[in-house]
């Protein structure tokens, strides 16, 4: 313990013998750490926003469908259990935030144009806060109940159809008997979504209205549930599955949309690669600093060996010196990155480049996300690799012959 104390004292004081060199190295570590964490926060924020938007559009963390629905999401594959019975089962199982929907392909037509869309019959009260349509993002009004006779479409779709709020459109789809089911709706609301493509893909009507249009009684296409964290949905999925039977499939969001799940995995890999790349750049400076520091102190090292300090203690001294440098740099860099991310709580507007990124599902506002796991990863990787990088000069220092070292000029 006494030896460790003197090693720390020597390492600390040696660190500040050449303040300029130490300062430059520290600055490099601080900037490198900041770049690692800040860039990871930007990427993490972008990917998480993509995943969240994607989950909201699915919607939900856990979904229930007819077994054939994924291959053919049409009126032919409605859930075999009626809405009323589903509600009873879910209530009995104590399942909280969830809703059911009618989801069928349809064509919406204005007086000028028509587009293929996904028609969603929803319960606006049950879905509040779970899907991507925010009341605040609706021009006009959102649906006020399952039997609302109006329709809410995306602002971009309205532009495409050259229609607008208060105008009428015709929705045309197929009923279970493969007969045309169509009806005119007045546009009561235009919604905006963070991903513009969503505005062109979905139109909303009341669930009861959709069931009446399609003549399907209380049948629905899907049920979905939202849990507290999209990264941990296994328990929720098990509870939903337990409440149902083998006539339906219960899937987590990452099974429904494997692209989103892949994005998350890619992000984790990207963070590690990015951190290692930055570290490799830093490591040249770190090793150079330590080699120079050792080279300048060869005689002292020889003296300490001559006085009876064991070689492993010399090795420890150089490693401690390196770790002190890294810890100071990492702490400062981490603090700096936190201070940089903090004021960006309202997001960064990237709409100038957003048009090109929308095809990837990236929103026009980027919210950097400082994930504790990324911060820990950056710090641990740099510390561990820094430790390994410092072993070479430390090993060299520990293996000087005392007499030869003391003769060095």
């Amino acid at each position, binding site marked *: 313990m*006494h*030896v460790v*104390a*003197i090693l720390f*004292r*020597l390492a600390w*004081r*040696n660190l500040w*013998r050449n303040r300029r060199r130490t300062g430059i190295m520290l600055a490099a570590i601080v900037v490198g750490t900041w770049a690692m964490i800040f860039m990871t926060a930007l990427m993490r924020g972008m990917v998480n926003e993509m995943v969240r938007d994607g989950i909201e559009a699915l919607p939900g963390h856990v979904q229930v469908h007819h077994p054939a629905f994924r291959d053919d999401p049409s009126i032919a594959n409605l859930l075999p259990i009626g809405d009323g019975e589903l509600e009873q089962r879910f209530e009995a199982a104590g399942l909280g935030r969830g809703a059911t929907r009618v989801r069928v392909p349809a064509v919406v037509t204005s007086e000028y144009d028509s587009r293929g869309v996904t028609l969603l019959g929803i319960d606006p009260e049950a879905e509040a806060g779970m899907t991507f349509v925010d009341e605040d993002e609706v021009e006009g009004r959102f649906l006020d109940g399952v039997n609302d006779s109006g329709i809410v479409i995306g602002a971009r779709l309205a532009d495409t159809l050259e229609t607008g709020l208060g105008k009428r459109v015709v929705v045309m789809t197929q009923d279970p008997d493969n007969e045309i089911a169509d009806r005119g709706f007045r546009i009561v609301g235009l919604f905006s979504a963070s991903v513009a493509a969503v505005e062109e893909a979905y139109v909303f009507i009341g669930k009861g209205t959709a069931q009446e249009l399609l003549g399907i009684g209380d049948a629905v296409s899907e049920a979905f549930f939202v849990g507290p964290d999209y990264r941990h949905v296994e328990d929720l999925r098990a509870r939903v599955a337990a409440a149902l039977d083998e006539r339906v499939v219960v899937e987590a969001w990452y099974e429904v949309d494997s692209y989103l799940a892949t994005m998350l995995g890619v992000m984790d890999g990207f963070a590690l690669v990015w951190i290692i790349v930055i570290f490799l750049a830093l490591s040249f400076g770190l090793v150079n600093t330590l080699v120079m520091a050792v080279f300048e102190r060869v*005689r*002292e090292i020889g*003296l*300490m*060996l*001559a*006085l*009876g*300090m*064991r*070689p*492993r*203690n010399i090795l420890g001294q150089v490693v401690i010196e390196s770790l002190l440098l890294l810890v100071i740099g990492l702490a400062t860099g981490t603090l700096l990155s936190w201070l940089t991310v903090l004021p960006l709580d309202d997001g960064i507007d990237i709409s100038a480049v957003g048009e090109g990124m929308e095809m990837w599902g990236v929103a026009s506002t980027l919210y950097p996300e400082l994930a504790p796991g990324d911060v820990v990863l950056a710090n641990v990787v740099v510390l561990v690799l820094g430790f390994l990088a410092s072993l070479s000069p430390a090993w060299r220092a520990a293996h000087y012959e*005392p*007499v030869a070292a*003391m003769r060095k000029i």
Partner: protein
Amino acid sequence: MPAVRCIDVCRTYYQGEQAIHALDHVTLDIADGDFVCLSAPSGGGKTTLLNTIGGLDRPDSGEVHIAGRRIDRLGKGELADLRLANIGFVFQAFNLIPVLTARENVEFVMQVQGVPGAERAQRAGEILAEVGLAGLEDRLPADMSGGQQQRVAVTRAIVSGPALVLADEPTANLDSHSADELMGLFVHLNEHHGTTFVIATHDQRVMAYARRLVRLLDGRVVEDVEQRAG
């Protein structure tokens, strides 16, 4: 049992293809509590002999014993432990660790030995006062004169009570007044603490303090005489 025993010790260096016999069949006993000067012209082998006795250099052949223990076959770690526990060193120059104060330099060996902090501080304070460095304890080596630095080095060499102190040209960088003070300190420690001193020097004034003078030439002992210390 002698403090130091060298039996037929040889050490050869090579400069290119030329062999330099730094120690050529040296046999020498140094008694416990003795005060010996190793004298030789430059390149005569005195520093090599001192380093070999101190376990800093390894002989090519022969045996070296310290306090009855053969040391020429010990590993690096064992030699480090031996030096730490038994031998105090005073070198010609670059004797102190520049980032440590006088007190910390004196405490260094004790700290590596594991002596508790309070005891270290007390012993360091007392011995620094004894060698006339009271008030300079917190100075860094760069803020002290050559003589003061050498006294700190001597203090560090003896503070942990080694049986043997090896000094290599300890007065080489000192003025005559500082050199006399330093040698007076060596004599005092030898007489009052029974510490064995082996000093490598070619300074006649230093030799005058020794009770025994060993002369080396081309790595061989050419003279070994007892003398009245002056």
